[in-house]
């Protein structure tokens, strides 16, 4: 099935679920903000994650179509899906619909990574690189240090409780991989859910004083969930879209809340990067940027 046919199919089935979106065309599928807000609202309904939910079925089918644009469309809703899903775990509601979508995303990543972990080799400055020459004898002691950023994935057919965090985390890693193609609304949604997941009010880390309020919806935050969350927040705060004031504010608040949470957990592994993000984003707010590419302004104009 070609991309266009798949899009038309997707629109047809979507309009059966959300009649107001019937007038969408394949070309506007990705750009129409109505789609995002309507589906997002529907996903927050009380029983939205159930196994027989039509919208979840549509999201699952659309992602499985294999068409890149359609997959991006589904990926946009990951913050809402993940957020609502994790918040409702404590209520013991059956959420087979959400789980199906999450597993589809997880399976996609499992296939594309081919059983390999995502790893990074830590450079050693004593050996030369493309950006620098190393003077003196290189430190040829042993093998280079390989750091595993994301361990190899095992396939999962169902969401087992102890694997839940990893599955959602991997879905978030996929979200991060495509994040520059995600709309701002999706990112803002993500930041808001971070605040909920932290379950901690971050007001005390604002520059101005504030009171402490209890925030509902705290979820366990193991590293496999925190790591992609921190990367996505880094993008929201310091990436090329940080001129969007609403996103920046939402991300700053999420950062503060997560920092408060990591302090309460006394989790040094997470305190370090989140603290750095807070410092860097505060600097952004303070500094009046000097443009080094601006030519000096003088009254003397000469050749």
């Amino acid at each position: 099935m070609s991309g266009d046919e798949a899009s038309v199919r997707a629109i047809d089935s979507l309009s059966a679920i959300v009649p107001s979106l019937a007038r969408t065309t394949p070309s506007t599928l990705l750009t129409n903000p109505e789609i995002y807000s309507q589906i997002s609202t529907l996903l927050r309904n009380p029983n939205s994650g159930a196994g027989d939910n039509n919208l979840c079925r549509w999201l699952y089918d659309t992602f499985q179509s294999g068409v890149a644009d359609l997959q991006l469309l589904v990926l946009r809703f990951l913050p809402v899906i993940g957020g609502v899903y994790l918040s409702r775990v404590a209520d013991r509601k059956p959420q087979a619909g959400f789980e199906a979508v999450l597993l589809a995303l997880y399976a996609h990543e499992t296939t594309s990574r081919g059983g390999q972990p995502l790893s990074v080799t830590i450079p050693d400055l004593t050996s030369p690189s493309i950006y620098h020459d190393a003077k003196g004898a290189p430190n040829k002691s042993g093998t280079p240090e390989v750091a595993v950023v994301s361990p190899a994935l095992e396939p999962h057919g169902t969401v087992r409780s102890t694997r839940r965090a990893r599955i959602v985390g991997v879905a978030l890693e996929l979200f991060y991989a495509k994040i520059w193609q995600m709309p701002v609304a999706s990112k803002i949604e993500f930041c808001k859910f971070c605040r909920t997941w932290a379950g901690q009010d971050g007001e005390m880390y604002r520059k101005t004083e504030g009171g402490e309020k209890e925030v509902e919806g705290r979820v366990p935050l193991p590293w496999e969930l925190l790591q992609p969350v921190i990367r996505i927040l880094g993008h929201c705060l310091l990436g090329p879209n940080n001129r969007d004031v609403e996103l920046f504010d939402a991300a700053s608040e999420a950062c503060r809340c997560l920092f408060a949470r990591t302090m309460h957990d006394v989790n040094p592994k997470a305190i370090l990067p989140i603290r750095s993000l807070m410092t860097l984003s505060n600097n952004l707010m303070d500094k009046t940027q000097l443009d080094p590419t601006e030519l000096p302004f003088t009254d003397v104009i000469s050749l």
Partner: protein
Amino acid sequence: MESSEQENVSLREFHANGTRISASEVEAKLDQGNIQEAEDALREGLSLNFEEARALLGKLEYQRGNVEGALRVFDGIDLQAAIQRLQPAFSEKQPAKKGRTRIESPSISQHAASLVLEAIYLKAKSLQKLRKFTEAASECKRILDAVEKIFYLGIPDIQVDNKLQEIVSHAVELLPELWKQAGCYDEAISAYRRALLSQWNLDTDCCARIQKSFVVFLLYSGVEASPPSLAVQIDGSYVPKNNLEEAILLLMILLKKFCLGKIKWDPSVMEHLTFALSICNQTSALAKQFEELMPGVYHRIDCWNSLALCLSGAGKNDNALNLLRKSLHKHEQPNDLTSLLLAAKICSEDPQLANEGVNYAQRAISNAHGPKEHLKGVALRMLGLCLGKQAKVASSDYERSHLQSKALESLEEAIRLEPNNSDLIFELAVQYAEHRNLRAALRSARHFFNETGGSVLKAWILLVLILSAQQRFSEAEVVTDAALDQTARWEQGPLLRLKAKLKISQSRPMDAIETYRYLLALVQAQKKSFGSLQISSKVEDYKVNEFDIWHGLANLYASLSRWKDAEICLQKARELKKYSAALVHTEGVLFEGRGQNREALCATINAVLLEPNHVPCKILMGALIQKMGLDSEYLTVARSSLSDALRIEHTNRKAWYCLGLLHKLDGRINDAADCFQAASMLEESDPIESFSSIS
């Protein structure tokens, strides 16, 4: 940007060819929209040619902030043709690196070049200010393409004049920014690489700025850069394969430049590196970077505290604690709340350090006020944990129970401040359980389970242990089976071990053997498929030792009087660990079972020599001495052995029972009754595995 202007008098002046004229007349003409007249005026006044006049005019407009006007002026110049004309002047030139020949002609041509290139540069800046980023980027790119063609062997050091170099450096720095602003991220990456990998003769500050800007892009843009082209790769040099590697490399280079005194200190470099290395689970590499920084960059206390965080994050708690001890010294910064909490947390994991931890936790509590008050609950939690651990090595009964109740008090106060902290709920449950307040323990354990949605393995295990302590074995088994359903294969080890023990408690030894067999198969499969590379560090936490399984089986067979099978299992276990007090203890049990009490006693003595604090051996020793009907001096040994065992494990019912028997033998009926009562009470609330296995 606009300097104050009176009606017709401008403060600006034109300088060229040795003359200077005021800019007011020209500005007036431009204001009227008369570019041609303005140009003519300039040409006359300063004897300029067409291009030079236009270039100056454009500059003036730009300085005045009339970017659209500037663009109009620049449009009048055929910049493309100008560039073409420049090229032949240089194409025959040999780049003489050492000699100073041909200074004359290059300087004139360079002058013309810098004029044209500056004009294009200002055009690009103007377009940038009008937010026409793609066009601006194209213009900027033309500069670099032109320079590359003109100086095709790279910009030689001596011969380029400052003006030209300045334009080129600015253009090199501007281009990637423009592509970024235009949203063309692939072009931005190429521009960054071009800036850093080609020879532009940039000064160190400019180079550092571009490197840092590239790092920010690599780390946070979310656009994965394809690896650098093969053209720039030299044999043996490190080529980064993805964004993180490239960013970390550049950050390390920037730090190195600072350490060599080439650039000024920029704290954001360290923050970015912290982010990058933390994301890669490499806080130990980060610690190394902190250490390599020169003293004085950070205040030594901040350095120690950051290092402590890095080391603790990498699991090197001992080193972290040493650093924290330094920074929390009374002459340094004894009231830093983060350090106090971290130190307390590290101490809370080791009974030998628990006393020290109590001190840190108490200081943390007294420091948690004002804006930091929200951390008081955390401090109380640490206090509770440390007191609980301290109780384990208490030297007297009184001290132990005192510490335990204080621990419980702290945790209860903590939870009033932090009712949603799931770790705290868990720790409270464990404390209640160790206190044998099983009802409260079960309530908290259920709360923890609900809060975490069953996603944490220890939630399941705790429930099973508490239920088993309440002697509700079949329910415990139900929970175990549910847990097995909800966990991935590699985490099931501890659950299977619990299941086997549950079967034993329910007097179904054959089922227990079956379960052990299954567990053995699992562990052996685990060993085969993982080898050295772990799938996840989480799995490490939940791995069951093959040795433990063989040992457990040996004990099981011994209890069934299947001596041969027990021997086989012992042998297997011995292959894995030769000298183990636990194994020798089982040997002793086997000897006892076969009626060989002397040999059994020898075994227990050997075991205690191996491990002086091995409780089951002490108990067995005491029991054997009493059984063998030896003289009263041996009975003293037995009594001290059992008392010792009770000192280490206060709630060991077997020890109490044996001690009771000893008292009875000696005629101390009251003491015996007390012991038997203790043993009986404990039996009613004994979990199948100690609660400390999950705390």
